[in-house]
């Protein structure tokens, strides 16, 4: 009975063994199958990674082109400008373009590596070597990541190149502006005052300091400024008088010439020559007035040197109030005593509400 039991046991054991083996075999089989599947999956992932790597390499290629174009534009700017800033920016753009190029090469290489690894992973999977397949797939992924990183670098480099190109552009434009913008030089000091009293007090100071080429600007003719500025009386009356007398003489000569010398006409027996004097009076008077008027107008324009539309004082925006409600004193650089610091100090001592140096363009 015991043997039987033993046998039974043995049998049982052997059957257990076999079943164990079978199950082990089965599990081995399962393992192999799973491994193969895993290897396949890994190979697929490796494929995907390789595809991504290739896409990244393509991006890197685009970035490289962009960077190259930016560098070319920057170079163009450099050719057309002498600004050192353009040169600097162009060098930067070129460096970035080179970097983009290197990154693109790296990305390309990484992509081809990734592709190779992916292929190896497939092969390994087909051969039933899952470990190798997995390892190859991991490598492919790593390569793909590198390709992506390189592509990203290339993109960054391209961006940098573009930024550098913009800098070059701006630098070039700024330089061009510098070329266009004429040089300026000081033309006059302009001091603003709020009340007639302040203006007159300041004018007296400037007068006493001995300036000649200076002026007060008011919205209306102000009393007391003639003395405060130390102006001599105007001579316009002389011009008017001379013009008026010219008119008077013209009238006498014209009437005598036309009605007496050139073509005497007897009208109603009235006398010609000196006897016609009473009838000449109205026209003598009118021509005197007419020529006095013209003499005064042109005398005024001559003495004031008007019309003059380009005076540097118009460069000041604040000066627009001179025809509204503010009072100004201007001292021009033409004055012998003009000195950037001393004149400023003098005007500041008069307590103007604003003081500015007005510049004019040269040329």
């Amino acid at each position, binding site marked *: 009975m015991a043997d039987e039991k033993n046998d039974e046991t043995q049998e049982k054991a052997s059957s257990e063994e076999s079943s164990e083996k079978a199950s082990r075999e089965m599990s081995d089989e399962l393992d192999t199958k799973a491994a193969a599947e895993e290897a396949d999956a890994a190979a697929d992932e490796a494929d995907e990674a390789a595809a991504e790597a290739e896409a990244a390499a393509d991006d890197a290629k685009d970035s490289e082109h962009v960077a190259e174009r930016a560098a070319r534009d920057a170079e163009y700017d450099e050719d057309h400008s002498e600004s050192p800033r353009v040169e600097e920016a162009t060098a930067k753009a070129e460096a970035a373009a080179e970097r983009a190029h290197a990154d693109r090469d790296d990305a390309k290489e990484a992509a081809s590596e990734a592709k190779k690894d992916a292929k190896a992973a497939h092969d390994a999977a087909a051969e039933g070597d899952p470990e190798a397949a997995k390892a190859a797939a991991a490598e492919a992924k790593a390569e793909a990541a590198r390709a992506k990183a390189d592509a990203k670098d290339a993109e960054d480099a391209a961006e940098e190149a573009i930024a550098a190109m913009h800098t070059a552009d701006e630098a070039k434009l700024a330089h061009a502006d510098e070329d266009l913008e004429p040089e300026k030089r000081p033309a006059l000091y302009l001091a603003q005052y709020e009340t007639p009293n302040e203006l007159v007090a300041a004018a007296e100071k400037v007068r006493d300091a001995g300036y000649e080429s200076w002026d007060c600007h008011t919205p209306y003719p102000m009393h007391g400024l003639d003395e405060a500025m130390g102006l001599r009386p105007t001579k316009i009356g002389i011009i*008017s008088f001379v013009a008026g007398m010219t008119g008077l003489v013209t009238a006498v000569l014209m009437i005598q010439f036309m009605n007496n010398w050139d073509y005497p006409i007897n009208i109603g027996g009235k006398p010609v020559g000196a006897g016609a004097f009473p009838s000449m009076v109205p026209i003598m008077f009118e021509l005197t*007035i007419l020529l006095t008027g013209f003499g005064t107008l042109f005398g005024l324009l001559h003495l004031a040197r008007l019309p003059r539309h380009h005076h540097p004082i118009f460069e000041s925006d604040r000066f627009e109030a001179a025809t509204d409600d503010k009072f100004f004193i201007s001292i021009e650089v033409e004055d012998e005593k003009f000195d950037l610091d001393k004149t400023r100090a003098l005007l500041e001592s008069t307590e103007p509400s604003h003081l500015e140096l007005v510049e004019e363009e040269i040329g």
Partner: protein
Amino acid sequence: MSAHAPIHEIGERHMLPEGTTFNDVTETVARITETKAPRGWWILFFPSLGLLGLMVACIGYLVTMGVGVWGNNAPAYWAWDITNFVWWIGIGHAGTLISAILFLFRQNWRTSINRFAEAMTVFAVLCAAIFPALHTGRPWFDYYLFPIPNQMAMWPNFKSPLMWDVFAVNTYLTISVIFWYVGLIPDLATLRDRSKSLLRKRIYGALALGWRGSHRHWQHYERAYLIFAAISTPLVLSVHSVVSFDFATSVIPGWHTTIFPPYFVAGAVFSGFALVLTLMLIVRTVFGLHNLVTIKHLDLMNKFMLATGIMVGYAYAMEFFIAWYSGNPYESWVFFHNRLGFGYLDEQGNWGPLWWSYWAMVSCNVLAPQVFWSKRMRTSIPVMFVVTIFINIGMWFERFVIIVTSLYRDFIPGSWGSFEPTWIDICLYLGTFGLFMTLFLLFVRWIPMIAIAEVKYTLPQAHPTHDDHHEEDHAHAAEAAPAPAE
């Protein structure tokens, strides 16, 4: 400067409301040219433009057909044309009086109305010039009037008062334009400096000649202004005197009187003030200028009209006195029959047929302004508006009476006639209102209609308050300074 301050002891005050700032003046005047025209402006502008078109059409018709389309006839060789000429010229005189004579008399209140009145002078003289230019019959030969060689190889006759008129009116127009423009230069600079758009800046800038308010310029400018005022004063007196010579140097009873020059000048100022006031009342309301053209200004202008109205009334009376006192029957006939109507009757026992025009003249010119003795009337805007229109009508009738009633029934009854205006007489006269008003409305819209710089000049804060003693203060300070050191 105390000379310009109002004398409080005799009741003088500053004309503008207390606290008016320089900027207020700039704003009030300049804004009109910078904002859209008020509706009132358009309401006036389109009819004016229509009347201007009527004038152009009338002139075209007249030039094509000849002056026969007017009602002028024998014996009324001069009629509406010369009436209108004298009337328009007279209108202009107020402008020069206000800008020149009141300037010489230091009447600072003139600054609120002078620009406006000067513009009216220029436009009125332009309107006036149309009539004699057409009355020559062949206006394309009007250059015969000027002393330039022509194909007749003849020179003008300088002994003729009509020739004097050519010189007087042209000089008057030229000087008025120059005076007006010189006064405008600082104000155009103000508009230039306020301009927002480049176009405005360019146009006003060009017209302002680069004016920069420089006191060295103001010094010449003020003297030039004084000279213009000084020459315009005798000029304005001469122009209407010369116009009156057109009549006075003839032998026509009613024209051949020595009172004519002062009588014409007084009448010109009278009618000019009336039209300035009529238009000022409209513009003041349309553009809201009540703070710059105050009731005090209007009051003063009414006093002027009262005074000149009395002068004109005196001249009317004196003409009658001389007509009677001279014992000249022709003179008496013109005044008592042709004008007054009932003094002398003709053989059929009739009054002079145009008696009504004389009475229209007297009631409008002499009676109507008498209401201005009352301060209430002088300061009532509806009253002064009505009275100024009466005066404008009356002054037109004055010229009509002088011209037509002297001509239509003179020495020989066989040559008597009458005068009836034709439609072209009427339309041409109305048309010149179109020219005047169109120019005037464009002026108020685009040019500062009140003299900005001159009004600022009259404000109480405009001039330094201490300049008389300033030098002394300095001297004292210099003396006093070393004292503490001793």
